[in-house]
Every structure is written in C-alpha cells, then in structure tokens.
C-alpha cells in the first residue's frame, strides 16, 4: 500500500492549534492538581506555630484555653465531638437511607417513585446554613422540651441520656441535623447501586420462591455491599466535614461529656465559630491545626471510599460511578 497523500497537509498546518489547545487544557488540569497541593501546603504552613508549640500531642489533648499567659490548645474534645456526632448520625442515617433506596427501587408504585426521588434529592440541595437555622430555632426547642426529657426519663440510667439541655443546643441536636444532611447522600448512591443489580439475579431469586425481602437480603444487598460501604464512608466524610449547621446547633462547649444532651463542639464547628478572628498568633495557628486534623480525616475517608469503589468496579466489571460526587 502506498503512503497516504494530500490531507495531511492541512493536518500539519493545524498542528499548532492542537498543541495550543492541549497546552491550555493541560494547564487547567495542572491547576487543579496545584490547588490540591496548595491546600495541603497552606494548611500545614498555617499551623506550623502550633505544631512547633505542641507537636503531635495537640491531636488528643483536651484543652482550649485562650487566656493570655495560660494559653493551651488541643484538639481532643473536638475530635471526640466529631466522632460522636458523625458516627451516631451515620448509624441513624444508614438504615433509613438504605430503606429509602430499597423503597425507591423495589417497592414504590410508579407514580411515587419519581416524586420521592426528586424530593430526596431536594433534601440534599438545602444549604447547611438553612438546616442549621431550622435546627437552632425550631428543632432545638422541640428536642429540649419534649424529646430529651422523655428519653432521660426512660433511659436516664444510661449516661448517654443525661438531663435535658438548657438551651436546645446539644450534641443530640447536631446528630439529628447531620442525620438529615447525610440521609439523602447515602440513599441516592444506594439507589443507583440497587438499580445496577442485574435483573436476572432478582428474577432468579424470586423464581426460587423467595419473598421480596429474602430476594433483597440474598441478592440485592450482597451485590451492592461494596458500594454501600463506599456510600456510608462518603456520608461519614460529609458529616465529619460539616461545620456550619453543627456550629449553629451544638452549643460550643469544650470538654468530653458523655451525655448526648450536653453541649459539645466538633473540629469543623470550632473553626467556624472562631471566624471573627483569634486573639493571638498561637490561637489562629491552633485553629488551622484543627483544620489540618480535619483535612487528614476527611481525605482518608474520601480515599478509602474511592478505593472501595474502584475495587468493586473492577470486580464487577461495571462502572459503579460516583467517585466523590454526591
């Protein structure tokens, strides 16, 4: 066969255009990577004074004393608050979210399916500051006056359910708010996972004479197991990183309290509350150090979720989609 003639001429003439577009687009992609690196660098850089002063012990020390001369900072109580609020919120949201997703894929009559899907996605679109506003002015008082006293009377022998909070701002309120915020995320990812379960598997199970629940338990859930784990981790990451709504409802209390009805603080909410500025350089650096701890936690959550998603996708040979985008 002979060489390809003429058209290459135009191609060569326009190769400059190709190079230009590739260069500009590549620069944009590089910029995204640079921003990620800058984030890590700036957060580490900003917390250096505090890292030098306290070292790694900062992470678990329970103290936040900004009084000049007695300054002592530590992330311990905020780490505790973050763990309690996000884990309990996840434990509450997970069964609800999976229930919603199962309802949407297995049970809902056609006329409800689209509407409920849209409503759940709308819930995800409500800004955190609006949920926080509702949490502090509507939900808080209701929990304080009705729910918390009832729980205290019934289950008060467990230290988790102490006396009701005075203001309505409590760890418990934050948990309810976070549950509402991560429920739609987990349920919309789970819904997509359940939709991806091959029809033959469902029909095979039903043909064996299983009930609908047995089909779900035996086929749908095991098939989507890895994806559900990733969805839960993403939800947890979202709960860990949420600063605004939590800071509005949690009350801002330093220290480790076992009662869910006492005030608390999380890494994110502590930073958000201090937005009007720190008094000393060390305090500002310690706030940024809190941000560093938060960054490490949420990034490891995120990467873990990605890793699971990729592994599952490879195993099933399908795109289980939605890396970090919910």
């Amino acid at each position, binding site marked *: 066969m002979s060489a390809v003639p003429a058209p290459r001429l135009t191609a060569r003439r326009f190769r400059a255009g190709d190079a230009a577009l590739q260069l*500009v*687009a590549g620069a944009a992609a590089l910029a995204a990577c640079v921003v990620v690196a800058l984030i890590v660098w*700036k957060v580490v850089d900003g917390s250096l004074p505090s890292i030098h002063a306290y070292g790694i012990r900062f992470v678990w020390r329970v103290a936040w004393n900004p009084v000049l001369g007695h300054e002592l900072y530590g992330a311990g109580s905020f780490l505790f608050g973050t763990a309690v609020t996000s884990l309990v919120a996840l434990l509450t949201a997970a069964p609800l979210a999976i229930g919603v997703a199962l309802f949407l894929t297995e049970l809902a009559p056609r006329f409800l399916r689209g509407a*409920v899907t849209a409503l759940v996605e709308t819930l995800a679109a*409500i800004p955190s500051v609006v949920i926080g506003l509702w949490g502090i002015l509507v939900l808080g008082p209701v929990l304080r006056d009705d729910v918390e006293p009832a729980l205290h009377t019934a289950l008060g022998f467990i230290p988790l359910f102490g006396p009701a909070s005075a203001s309505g701002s409590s760890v418990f309120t934050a948990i309810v708010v976070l549950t509402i915020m991560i429920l739609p995320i987990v349920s919309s990812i789970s819904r997509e996972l359940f939709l991806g379960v091959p029809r033959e598997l469902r029909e095979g199970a039903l043909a064996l004479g299983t009930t609908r629940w047995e089909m779900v338990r035996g086929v749908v859930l095991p098939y989507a197991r890895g994806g559900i784990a990733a969805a839960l981790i993403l939800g947890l990451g979202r709960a860990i990183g949420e600063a605004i709504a939590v800071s509005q409802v949690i009350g801002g209390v330093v220290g480790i309290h076992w009662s869910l009805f006492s005030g608390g603080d999380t890494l994110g909410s502590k930073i958000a509350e201090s937005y009007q500025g720190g008094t000393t350089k060390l305090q500002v650096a310690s706030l940024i150090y809190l941000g560093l701890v938060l960054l490490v936690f949420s990034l490891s959550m995120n990467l873990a979720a990605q890793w699971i998603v990729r592994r599952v996708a490879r195993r099933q040979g399908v795109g289980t989609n939605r890396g970090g985008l919910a």
Partner: protein
Amino acid sequence: MSTHGITRADLQLVHLPRRRRINRAMELLAWLAATIAVAALVVVVWSVAKRGAPALNLDLLTRAPVAFALGPVKQGLANAFAGSLVLVGLATLMTVPVGILIAVYLTEYARPSIRSAVSLALDVLNGVPAIVIAIFVFGLLVVGHGQSGWAGSFALACLMLPLVARSTMEVLLLVPVSLREASLGLGVPRWRTTLSIVLPQTLGGIVTGTVLAVARVAGETAPLLFTSSIVGTQVGWSPNHALQSIPVAIYELSESADPADHARAWAAATVLLVFILLTSLTARWLATRGRRRLSTSR
C-alpha cells in the same frame, strides 16, 4: 446485614407464614424510611416558608441593614443580596472555563495514567471540607491583604471546580465516537473537532452542570467565613472589599438573640431556598430535555 446469599433452609415452605410476615415487616420499614425522609424535607421547607413568607417584603431586597437599630426600623439585607450576586457570579466566571478545559483535556488528550491522577485530584478537591477551603484561602489570599470579594469568590470557585469539571466530562463522554471519527476523517484537525463539533453537542449538559454547581455554592457559608465575612452594612459591589452574602447573613442572624433578626434570617432563607429549588429544577428540566434531543438526533 446477612451476606450469605440464599440457602435451602430459607426456602422451606413450612416457614412460609413467618417468611411472609418478615417480608411484610421489612416492606413497612422501607415505607417508613421513605416517609421519614420526605417528612424531613417537608418539615424543614414548611418551617422556613411559614416564618419567612410573612417577613418577605421589598425592604429586604432594597434596604441595607441598620447598625445599632433601636426599635422597629425598616431594614433589609440588600448588602447580602448584592454581595452574593457578585461572589457567585465571579466564582462562576472563574470556574466554568477552567472546568471545561479540564474536562476537554481529560476526555480528549490525557493518557490514562494522567487522567486517573487528575480525576483523583478532582475527587480529593471535592472531598475537602468547605471549612478547610476557607482556611486555605485565608492563608493564601487573606493573610497580609485582608478579606475581599476576590478571596471569597476564589474559595467558592474551589468548591465549584470539581463539580463543573466532572459534569462536563460526563457529557463529553456521551458524545458518540462516530461523530469525532466522522469529523477527523474529513480532515478536520483534532482541536477544531473538539471545539466546533464535540463541545457544541454538550452545551446543554455543561449549562446544566454549571447551574447545579451555582445552586450548590450559592448556599455555601463556610468558604466565605474567613474570606469575605467581616463587613459593614453598606451595599457594596466591588470585590476589592469584603462582601456580605446571604448564607453568612443567615448564619450571623441565626445566632442573634433578637427575634427581629430571626425574622430576617427566615426571610433570607426563604429567598435562598426558592432560588436553589428553582435553579435545580430548571437544571433538571434542561437535562431531561437535552437527553431527549441527543437520543432523537442520533
């Protein structure tokens, strides 16, 4: 959660009544879960609308807040509305070109190894908590220079970028390969194929993705806290100074002890919710319309 699959013991007919009861119970629980989720939405939206609607008036949009107001003074949040417009507008202008270019690079040019590295970076960026973005921009642009609208909109842009890039990438991947091949086969160089054949096909999808991203960041408070939150009460349009915004205004008013402030917070929240719901619905409508067009044209 049981994961052992279906065993023979599960299917014994003797247990059928019990199995049916369990099935019924689980179905009820799923209905309950869906009801709770929908109820949460209804309760939140209803609470906001019920308290916000009576406080809605033109003063909210046209009057600036009054510092140290004594008694009932006519005041609004004009500064917050103006600031939000500028901040979100600038963030959109910063994000959209960069986001589209990233998507073009990843779908048309990048080698697989680079593609997975950059998409990992985008996912990581998407997973960084908004409050950490605020700290980052504080350290990058605010320390030494003071808060400004630029810093605030850059922080919002950091949140928007992965959303826009990802949604653009998804629509670019939907464009049939045959279309690209037809164009390349006619001798059109790759860059012209990309810019004048592939991208126009995806315009609807890009608009949808951008609108969704705008709806998302319009309600973001955290990135603005350290970058554009220490503000006066005047209405300002210049990003050279710190600008008030609706979410930050709601945040501050919600922590106030004054019921009049709460009323304004509810009103602002109502406006914000209406804006976000309208934009999301529009985007979804555009998306379904675009998909229908793409499938009929093929």
